[in-house]
């Protein structure tokens, strides 16, 4: 399997889009830090970047890559190799290439300007979100044979996670405005990796004071060691569950 990963990784790294993504992240992060007069503000801009650009690039690039490597997959499937290893290799290859791009592109400026716990949390969340959206892309790509449909589906998923879900939450909040929903919000935040990542970063940035009682409830949960472990575990689930489902589908897929 490591050999297949090696070939996939080499193939992706040769891809100019990944290089472009790295440079883009690097340029944006650097300019964000050098344009803003204090790094705290830079971090806030970076937060939006991580929660907006990273999932988008990861999900779309991965989906397209999987469709484009259908020949490669076909070739490998006719060889004495487990389907599972092929699929997992693609995941590992994509996830590590995009993580590497993120680490280099955003990580170096963060290390230079903000090597604090907040900066590290932000990096960790960025990495987790990269991995999660690769996994979601794999599920989207294996679900349909048609490339256009698959890409459309993954864009929809991205819109759902970054916009629609929050809209639904807002709607629900107003529907059930008479009930104390702070605790429920903790559970709900776990249903969207982007929200979860955002809240974890915001709490580290000590904006929780701004968030009033909700912030206090969040802090009392996510601020504890147990809460942090649980939330990172939930993030892992967000990567593992789509991946497992996609693997199951791939194992039964006709090529």
């Amino acid at each position, binding site marked *: 399997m490591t050999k297949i990963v090696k070939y996939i990784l080499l193939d992706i790294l040769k891809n100019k889009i990944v290089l472009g993504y790295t440079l883009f992240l690097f340029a944006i992060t650097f300019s964000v830090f050098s344009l803003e007069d204090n790094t705290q*503000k830079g971090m*806030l801009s970076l*937060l*939006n970047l991580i*929660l*907006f650009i990273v999932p988008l690039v990861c999900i779309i690039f991965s989906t397209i890559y999987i469709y484009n490597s259908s020949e490669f997959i076909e070739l490998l499937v006719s060889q004495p190799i487990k389907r599972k290893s092929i699929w997992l290799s693609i995941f590992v290859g994509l996830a590590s290439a995009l993580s590497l791009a993120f680490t280099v592109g955003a990580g170096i400026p963060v290390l230079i300007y903000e090597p604090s716990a907040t900066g590290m949390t932000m990096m960790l969340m960025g990495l987790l979100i990269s991995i999660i959206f690769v996994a979601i892309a794999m599920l989207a790509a294996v679900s349909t044979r048609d490339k256009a449909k698959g890409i459309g589906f993954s864009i929809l998923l991205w819109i759902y996670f*970054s*916009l629609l879900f*929050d*809209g639904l*939450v*807002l709607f629900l*909040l*107003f529907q059930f*405005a008479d009930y104390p*929903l*702070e605790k*429920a*919000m903790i559970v*709900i*935040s776990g249903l969207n990796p*982007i*929200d979860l990542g*955002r*809240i974890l970063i*915001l709490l580290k940035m*000590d*904006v*929780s*004071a*701004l*968030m*009033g*009682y*909700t*912030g*206090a409830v*969040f802090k009392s949960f996510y601020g504890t060691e147990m809460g942090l472990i649980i939330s990172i575990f939930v993030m892992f689930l967000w990567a593992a569950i789509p991946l497992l489902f996609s693997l199951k589908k791939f194992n039964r897929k006709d090529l």
Partner: protein
Amino acid sequence: MKKIIPISLFFLFCHYLASGSGLRVGKQQMLKTITEGLFRAKDKDTIWVEKGIYNEQNLTINKQVVLIGIGRPVLDGEHKFQNVSVKADNVTIYGFEIRNSGISSIVDFAGIKIYDSHHVTIVNNILVDCFFGIYLQNCTNCIIRNNTMTAHQLQEQQSGNGVHCWKGDSIQVIGNKISGHRDGIYFEFVTNSIIWRNISVKNIRYGLHFMFSNSDTYAANIFENNGAGVSVMFSNKVKMFHNYFIENWGDGSYGILLKEISDSYIDGNYFERNTSGIFMEGVSRVKMCNNNFKENGWGLKIQSSCMDIALTNNNFLGNTFDVGTSGSLVLNTFDNNYWDKYEGYDLDKNKIGDVPYRPVSMFSMVVEKNPPAMMLFRSLITTLLDRSERVIPSLTPESLKDNYPLMKPIKL
């Protein structure tokens, strides 16, 4: 020149008649303790206290004397007593270190407590680990100047206030440094007084706590990093000039909390990095000019119970939310301020934006109505909502706007 000498001599003579004589207290002197010194002193005497540690067990000053420490003698309360009780008028205490007063939940022990007196002056003392620092009870015309008060308790119940004034008039609190107390400066029923150039930092509750005190001024103070900022309540004719309210950051923390204040001025103050720069409730007839609101969570939180507040010529820079409000009723004006989030234009180049600015964001209204929505803080959807609200206002109060927003920040 020849005339001056006899005139000076005449004044010196008068001075001699007016002032008392001097007594010296010290380990090498006849008078070993200040209590002994006081016993021997008459009104208008000066007692010079030499360097050393004095365990006077509640030194009570009941004569009109001047107490001067040489080389900063120490009055130690041994964690049991009130160090100094002043029960006479015209007392001056200068140059002492006063430490370790008793701590009690029944009696308000203080480093220096002044009872029902006038013209008492407390200058240049250092108070360390006292329960209350300087406590004025029903006093007038007193001066508290250049003292340093430091306490190290962690709990509110274990700690008293730095400067505590209960009932008084014409008090001057000037140039003191207070930290680690419950409230830095506490005023209740104090009128016609001034709080000037004090530095009140890292106190457990408020940097300044101010209630039922009318016609007072506080100016050029620094209130930094206090547990809940500054609280000014139930007072009128208060003038707040050129103070710094910095880094009062935390849940329920404010640069300044204004409650039931009327006929007052807030001018030239700096509010930086507070959870809320100003939180006001039931405030009326207040003029706010030339203030700087910078990098606060909320620049200004103004409940709909406020009226006739005129906010002009202020700068709002880098606040997460410029203004938050609770309802749709707005009886205040917000004209001629600079808002860094303003995106309008100035076609006629008169340095005033041509379209009004609405400082209340949609999301801050949503959160006011529905606090758990704070979960969506800084998410894409809230940004989009704010954008659309700017174009077509629906939820934010129609009349809360700056009709003449400035294009450039005011130089302050």
